[in-house]
């Protein structure tokens, strides 16, 4: 192995590269405008503001031209709806594929899974045309409905449900429960960790989504967070302090969510990597 001291230097160097831009962003958002471009050499104040201020935050939440609060509300609405519907419908499909016996299962399942190789970027144009025909442009229906079903989620949940013994479900049947009752009272409670993981992935995916909202939402008041921030940064007189503030507001909840649910998030990568 590499000598221990060199290993430590490397570990800290990579940590610095990972974290310093984020720290620089958060600290930059707390600087007054004239200070942002002042400290560019290696010194304490490259990262720590001389004069702390919240004026950038005040600007993005109060200014009517950049109503960040509205974009956060829009994004939360879409992300939460997609996540809830996604967990429900994907888990029902996965339960059915994993545990129920029905005709054509052996044909439907591989066909279903084959959609995994079709990338969204490629179907984007015809999907847009479809959404356009349906009259969904500029509505959240266009953001929500096509995003609910995820083949990847179904795939992961099938593996999870497969481990529930069929006898347990049959016992529920004999006790007179319907299949929906068995799904909701036996299958779902026994797969809470998988549901948290998928919920987290779906929510983050929605929070991050950029290309699809850019394509289907033209009305500025309905826009999603990422598109809004990107638009701010392309304005003529870019107020960088405000952009950094918006970036920070957008990141802090996600970082906290990640730190709290880290175990589940990492687990999802591990299992998709192993089973993928």
């Amino acid at each position, binding site marked *: 192995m590499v000598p221990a001291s060199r290993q430590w230097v490397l570990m800290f160097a990579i940590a610095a590269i990972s974290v310093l831009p984020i720290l620089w962003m958060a600290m930059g958002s707390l600087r007054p405008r004239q200070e942002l471009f002042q400290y560019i050499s290696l010194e304490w104040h490259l990262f720590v503001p001389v004069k702390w201020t919240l004026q950038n935050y005040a600007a993005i939440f109060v200014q009517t031209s950049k109503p960040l609060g509205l974009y956060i509300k829009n994004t939360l609405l879409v992300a939460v709806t997609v996540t809830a519907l996604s967990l429900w419908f994907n888990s029902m499909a996965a339960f059915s594929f994993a545990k129920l016996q029905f005709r054509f299962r052996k044909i439907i399942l591989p066909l279903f899974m084959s959609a995994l190789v079709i990338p969204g970027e490629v179907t984007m*144009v015809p999907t847009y045309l479809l959404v356009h025909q349906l009259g969904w442009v500029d509505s959240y229906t266009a953001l929500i409905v096509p995003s609910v079903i995820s083949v990847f989620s179904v795939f992961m949940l099938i593996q999870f449900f497969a481990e529930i013994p069929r006898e347990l479900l049959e016992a529920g049947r004999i006790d007179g429960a319907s299949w929906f009752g068995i799904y909701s009272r036996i299958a779902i409670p026994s797969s809470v960790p998988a549901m948290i993981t998928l919920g987290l992935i779906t929510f983050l995916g929605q929070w991050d989504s950029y290309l699809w909202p850019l394509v289907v939402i033209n009305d500025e008041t309905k826009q999603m967070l990422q598109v809004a921030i990107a638009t701010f940064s392309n304005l003529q007189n870019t107020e960088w302090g405000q952009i950094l503030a918006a970036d920070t507001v957008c990141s802090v909840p996600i*970082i906290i969510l990640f730190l709290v649910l880290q175990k589940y998030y990492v687990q999802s990568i*591990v299992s998709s990597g192993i089973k993928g």
Partner: protein
Amino acid sequence: MLPKGRAEQRRSLFYRKGVIRLKITSAYHKQEERAAALFIAPAIISLLLFTFYPMVKAFMTSFEDYNLISTNSSFVGLTNYVNLLKDPEFLRSLLHSLHFAVIVIPVQTALALSMALLVHRSSKISGFFRTTYFLPVVISMGVASTLFKLVYNKDFGLLNSVLKIFGLPPVAFLSDSHAAMYGIMLLGMWKAAGFFMIVFIAGLNNIPRSLYEAAEVDGATALQKFFKITLPLLRRTMTFVVVITTMDAIKISGPVFILTGGGPANSTTTAVYFIYKTAFQQMDMGYATAAAFILFVIVLIISLIQLRLFKTDVEY
């Protein structure tokens, strides 16, 4: 008399039970089928509508001259494909995507593996570094792109401040057409390396410790252990990482939108960005879908290679 009667009784009882069971099972199966159909219906309908139908539609549109503004479409055969294969702008966009892939795949994979090797042990300190290395993954692409736009700023950016500390000349990462693509790559790797690090850690933790102990007894050096044990046993993980990185890399577009807008001088226009521009700025849907289809075929071929690799791996 009695034994016979009892036997008959038993037989008829057995028979009756069988009938009842048959009736129950067929009703039971019918209910199960109905439940299954109801449960998968939303997923199937959604998939048909938003994945398979657009695929078929894309295939058809790609043979049409279909403009969204004039809203008329006419069949033009292979014209779109022929024109695309002669269109230097499209070919260059494919080349940019490939350029991105060719650099990012080896560099990012090596980086992710090194990071995994540094922090894969389960200790509090390793855990702390793992979390740190993973942070860029949870930062949204939109946020990261706007942030890096500033980080790359020639005069005040963090990156050039750091370059100056090491006595290096400043680089205009986004306005120099030779450097811009590397700016995109750097951002892409900053954001993704931590993700693949976790995948590698999972792979590393699956390698039995006893192998290393045995090698140590035999006096193997660290390098020998890495090349004779770690790398061969990581083959499955490595395949996964390389294939996923390849697919992501060829479809790269997110940071292009925000960081460079495809510029300067189209030097960062990737295939997906080209498709977006053709479809939603020039409204030329036929041409765009044909381009998307060419990209799809490229991605499909890579996916098939992926399946192949996984198959040989399972047999192995």
